[in-house]
C-alpha cells in the first residue's frame, strides 16, 4: 500500500486588513467585548466581493490553487481529483452555492478537465476531511494525486454578529473571531520518508453537533453562526483529541512522547483556546507539547483553512526546518477532532 505526502501548498490572502478595533466599531453593543484580550486577535483579512474583480470563495480558491500549482511538479491537467472544502461557498454576488459543486467550477477555471471533483463540507474540519479522503484514495491506489482546497469568505458572519449582538454573552460572539483566506494543498504518493503523511485520523462526536450552528440569519439576513462556547469548550470536549490520539497510537504500540513531533498546530480559535488545548494535551498524553505555531494575531480564525494557513505562513517565514515532523489537530463543530502528523522537507512557498 502506498503512503501519501504534502507535495505543495499555496495560499491567497485578501489585501484588506481589518483591525479588531475597526470590527468592534461596527457593533451596536452597549459594552464592547474585549475581543483582543479574549482571543489574541489583532486583525484579520477581509475579502471584498463588491469590486469589478471580486474576492469571493471561488476567486480566492482559484488564486490559492494557482499559487500551489506554481510550487508543484504537476500541472492542472495532471491532477486526478479536486476536493473543495469551504463552509461559506459564496460567489456570483453573494450566492451561497449548492450545485454544481464548487470543485467543478474550480476544476474548470484551472483547466483540470479530467479530474474527479466533489465538495466536502465538515465545518472547520473541511480541509482536514478532504486530505483524509485523498490520503485514503492515494493509499488504496484509487488516485495518484489530488488538490484539496478551500476559499473561505467567512467574515460576513462577523458582520452579522456585529449588526445583531446586543451583549457579548450572546451565541454569535465566536462569529467575531473569523478571517478570510484561501489555501490549497496538493497531496500525492510519498517517494521517501523525508516527505510523508504518517497518520491522519478523524472522528465526530455528534452528541455535541448542535453546539455550533451556521445558517442564514432570520434577523438581519446573510450568513450567521450561533455557538454555545461554554459547552463547546468544556474540558470534556477538549479532552477528546488527546484521548483519541493516545488510544490510536497505543493500538500501534506507540506513545505520543516517542513520536518526535517538532511543531503542533491547533485550530486557530484564539490564543487562550490554543493554550488550553496544549495544556489538556500535555496532561492526558503525559508529554510536553512541541512548539505551537499560530497565526491568530494576524489572520484570526480562518475556519477550514486555518491549519494549512499556519503551515503556509510558517514555511514562508522559514520557521520549519527540513525534516520537521508536524502535528495538526482539528477542532470543529460536529464535534470533529483527530490528528494529522507529517514529515515535511521539500514543501516550499
Amino acid at each position, binding site marked *: 500500500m502506498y503512503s501519501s505526502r504534502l507535495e505543495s501548498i499555496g495560499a491567497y490572502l485578501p489585501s484588506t486588513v481589518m483591525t479588531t478595533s475597526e470590527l468592534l466599531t461596527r457593533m451596536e453593543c452597549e459594552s464592547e467585548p474585549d475581543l483582543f484580550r479574549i482571543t489574541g486577535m489583532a486583525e484579520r483579512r477581509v475579502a471584498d466581493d463588491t469590486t469589478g474583480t471580486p474576492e469571493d470563495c471561488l476567486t480566492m480558491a482559484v488564486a490559492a490553487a494557482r499559487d500551489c500549482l506554481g510550487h508543484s511538479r504537476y500541472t492542472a491537467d495532471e491532477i486526478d481529483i479536486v476536493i473543495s472544502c469551504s463552509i461559506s461557498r459564496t460567489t456570483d454576488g453573494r450566492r451561497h452555492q449548492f450545485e454544481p*459543486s464548487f470543485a467543478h467550477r474550480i476544476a474548470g477555471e484551472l483547466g483540470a478537465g479530467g479530474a474527479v471533483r466533489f465538495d466536502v*463540507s465538515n465545518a472547520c474540519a473541511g480541509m482536514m476531511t478532504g486530505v483524509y479522503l485523498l490520503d485514503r484514495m492515494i*493509499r488504496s491506489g484509487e488516485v495518484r494525486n489530488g488538490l484539496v482546497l478551500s476559499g473561505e469568505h467567512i467574515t460576513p458572519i462577523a458582520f452579522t454578529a456585529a449588526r445583531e449582538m446586543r451583549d457579548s454573552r450572546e451565541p454569535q460572539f465566536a462569529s467575531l473571531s473569523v478571517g478570510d483566506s484561501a489555501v490549497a494543498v496538493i497531496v500525492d504518493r510519498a517517494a521517501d520518508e523525508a516527505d510523508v503523511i504518517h497518520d491522519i485520523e478523524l472522528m465526530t462526536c455528534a452528541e455535541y453537533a448542535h453546539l455550533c450552528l451556521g445558517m442564514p440569519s432570520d434577523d438581519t439576513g446573510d*450568513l450567521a453562526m450561533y455557538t454555545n462556547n461554554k459547552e463547546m469548550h468544556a474540558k470534556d470536549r477538549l479532552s477528546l483529541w488527546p484521548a483519541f490520539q493516545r488510544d490510536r497510537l497505543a493500538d500501534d504500540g506507540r506513545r505520543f512522547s516517542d513520536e518526535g513531533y517538532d511543531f503542533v498546530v491547533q485550530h486557530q480559535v484564539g490564543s487562550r483556546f490554543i493554550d488550553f488545548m496544549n495544556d489538556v494535551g500535555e496532561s492526558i498524553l503525559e508529554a510536553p507539547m512541541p512548539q505551537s505555531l499560530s497565526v491568530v494575531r494576524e489572520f484570526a480564525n480562518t475556519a477550514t483553512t486555518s491549519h494549512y494557513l499556519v503551515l503556509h505562513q510558517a514555511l514562508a517565514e522559514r520557521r520549519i526546518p527540513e525534516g520537521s515532523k508536524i502535528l495538526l489537530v482539528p477542532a470543529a463543530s460536529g464535534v470533529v477532532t483527530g490528528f494529522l502528523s507529517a514529515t515535511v522537507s521539500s514543501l516550499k512557498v
Partner: protein
Amino acid sequence: MATVIASTALSPADGSGSAIGYAASAGTACLRQAGLTPSDADVLINVGVYRDSNVSEPSVAALIQKRIGINLDYLHTADRHAAFSFDLMNGACGILNAVQAAGALLATGSARRVLVVSADTHPSMDPAKAGTAEFPYASTGAAMLLERGEDARGFGRVHHRSSSGTHGINGYLPLRDAGSEGRNTITVDREDRALGRMLELAVDSVNGLLAAEYGVDPAEVPAALEKTLLVTSQPSPDFASHLSRRLGLASDAAVTVEGLEGDPHTSALTYGYRQALEAGRLAGHDRILFLAVGAGLTSAASIYRLDGAPEGAAH
C-alpha cells in the same frame, strides 16, 4: 474484492420535510435490516444537497449521526468506538463519489462499514414546496450501507465525465435577495436545454464506460447491456425510458422511480435500486449499471456485478 451494497432503505413519507429526519430514518432502517446497531457504522457520509434551513455548519451528516445515535461521545462509550461523519456534495452524482471514497476507506481498513445517506428538502421544510417548477426535487431520503465483499461481486471503477459549457442546473441561496428569509429560500435555475444535454452526456457516459471496461464499440452497446439493469438519476420522470431508447434498449431497461413528487435527486440511485429489488427486477440480470448525471454538467457511472443474492450476502 470490491465494495458491496449490504443494505438499502428509503425514508418513509412522514411529511416532516426534514432532510435530517429523512436521512436518519432511512439510515436507521438500513442498519436494522442488516442486523446491525448504529454503533456498527464506522463512517457516515451524507450526499444530500438541499437541507433544513440552509444549515451550513456543522455537517448535516453530524446532525444525522446524532439522530441515528452512532457512537456519539468517544469518552463515554464503553468500547471507545469512534465514528466519523461528513457531507460530500456533488449533486445527483454525489452518491457515486461516495461509493468511490467509501471504497478507499474500506480497502485501507479505515472502516468496516460506511453508511451513505442522502436526503433533499426545500429549506423551508414545507413539503408542498418540493417537486414544483421552482424546486423540482422530491422531499425524501435514502440510505445505502457499504461493506467490502469477498468475491468479484460489487462496484467496479467509478467513471467520471463532465461537459464543457454552462452548468445546466444552478442551485443557490441568493443571500442579498433573501434578506431575513434566508432559512426558507432557495433558487434552482434549470436551463431549457439542460435535460437534452443531460441525456446526451448520459449516452456518452454509458458508451465511454463500456468502451473502457469491455472494449465495446457503440454499435455493440445494446448487446453488451443485454443482462444489465440500468439504475439512473431521474432529472425528469421519463429520463430513464428516454435513455433506454437512445441506447437501443427496451424502454424499461432503465428503472423509473415511482411514487414520488419530484426528482429524488441525490437519493435517485438508491431509490431505483431498492424499488427494482423489491419488484424482483434484479432477477435475470448479471450487472447493474449505476449512472448519474447532474449539474455541471457532470456524470458518474459504475458497473455493479450481481451474484443473485443482491443484499445481505456479505454476512
